């Protein structure tokens, strides 16, 4: 565990130096603050609207960072040859991969917490500006779900980068995300348009993480279903960790015979 932690901390430090992270953070702050302009022209529950737009920004930016940092974490180290001195140590490739995934995930969480803090301040500001705004909006739980989703996306990006290189990894991760996120809609569309592909697609989608069930950010304003209980969230967290571990295992298999 000591070695995994060392790799994770080194990866975190390298990720925090990446300009992508800062750019993405600034973009998310811009989007969140620009909500203030939007709600001026809108009727309805302004706090919920701010939360919806803010979480959507965090989700989009988080997804972008997860794909880019995840896809470059190992490939950049191979290209820079820094991987040689690391894997010449008594460090297994599984430990190395776990450290990389955890390091990128930690960078992402720090980034999301920063964006979450901006969102929280924005909500407080909206509440202070507009009299009669409800005291809170249910945004903490959806925010935690974004973290679960990020863990899966990072581990997938790392897996695809080892299999196909960094550029294709971004595309493959985005495709897998879309398939996992719009599973039901995709199956419905295929069943209507090309019925012959319905079952092959359904079987394929079993191998894709069910990101649909982890989506708690959309449509908070019009939401009728209650948010998951804390025990339900624990089960969902276990699911996302299992998906990430499976991706790490596949990455380790692909990376085991890789010549460096």
């Amino acid at each position: 565990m000591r070695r995994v932690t060392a790799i994770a901390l080194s990866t975190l430090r390298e990720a925090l130096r990446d300009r992508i992270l800062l750019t993405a953070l600034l973009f998310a702050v811009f989007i969140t603050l620009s909500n203030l302009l939007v709600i001026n022209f809108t009727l309805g529950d302004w706090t919920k609207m701010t939360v919806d737009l803010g979480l959507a920004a965090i989700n989009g930016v988080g997804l972008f960072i997860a794909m880019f940092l995840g896809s470059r974490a190992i490939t950049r180290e191979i290209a820079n040859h820094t991987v040689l001195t690391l894997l010449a140590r008594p460090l297994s490739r599984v430990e190395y991969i776990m450290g990389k995934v955890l390091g990128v995930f930690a960078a992402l969480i720090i980034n999301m917490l920063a964006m979450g803090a901006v969102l929280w301040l924005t909500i407080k500001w909206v509440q202070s500006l507009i009299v009669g705004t409800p005291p809170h909006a249910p945004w903490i739980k959806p925010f935690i779900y974004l973290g679960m989703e990020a863990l899966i996306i990072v581990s997938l990006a790392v897996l695809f980068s080892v299999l196909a290189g960094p550029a294709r990894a971004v595309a493959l991760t985005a495709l897998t995300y879309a398939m996992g996120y719009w599973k039901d809609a995709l199956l419905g569309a295929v069943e209507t348009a090309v019925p012959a592909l319905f079952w092959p697609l359904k079987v394929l989608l079993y191998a894709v993480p069910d990101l649909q069930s982890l989506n708690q950010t959309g449509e908070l304003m019009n939401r009728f279903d209650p948010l998951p209980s804390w025990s339900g969230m624990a089960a969902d967290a276990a699911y996302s960790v299992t998906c990430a571990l499976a991706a790490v295992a596949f990455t380790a298999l692909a990376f085991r015979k890789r010549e460096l």
Partner: protein
Amino acid sequence: MNPVLEIQGVSKVYHHPGKPPKQAIRNISFSAQPGEAIALLGHNGAGKSTLFRCILGLHGHDGGTIRIGGHPPGSMAAQALIGYLPEKPFFQEYLTGRELMHFHAVLAGVPSAQIEARTDELLRRVELHNDAGKPIRKYSKGMQQRIGVAQALLGDPKLLILDEPLSGLDPLGRNLVRNLINEERAKGRAVLFSSHVLADAERSCDRALILVRGELRRDISTGPAFAGLDPRRELVAAGAPGLADEVRRKGLGVEETGGVLRIELPGPELFWDLKERITALGGRVLSFGPRRRHLEDLYLAEHQ
């Protein structure tokens, strides 16, 4: 004594899509004992780095066996016995020298309580203790090479694998690393290193292995008997005008510098005739003895 490294009949072929297979190394066999320094010599592309990477488990090999302390390459037990300096020491450049050492100390399994002391000791040995707080991106090439050697020593390895440890170093740096190799050898570590600087390699190794196009052509002991094995003799003479041309006509090798002639004789037999001739020309013999044999001679002979 059990060898630290045993290599038997190891080969490696690279397969790249759309290209014919490339045999990088072929049927290499040798072993390294504790306390032995072995120089791996060969031109660029001879297979030195490939062999190192096979030993480290970074590359698989196609035939033969490799054992490090009895363990297969790439296993945790084998890696724990190895300290490695890659050909170009690429490190995370934003880390300071001390941070890099701490990071690698953890990976090498140095107990937490000993990391600081071990780091200090090694930084001092490579004379970087005053620059330990600087980021590595501000290090010169020579300093990066020295920190690379220091990190290789962190885990108290039984086998040091140093890929071109003397490259990029000034004469003082080369001397420092050469001494370090000799000290580590004296402590009982086996050292396997590659070098293009043959004179330096000769001064630091017990054996030299010459690789030519992936094949091990020579395994030379460079111990005290090394110079004596050469039957050739060298005669140094001065003040004998016209002697150089005469000697050349006889097919002997001669170098002339400022009136001093260095004549290479195939054996001791011709000495008396030549001495007589030198005296007749009014010159004198300055020295006569075994021709000093250099690794470079053997290296060049293998490549002709």
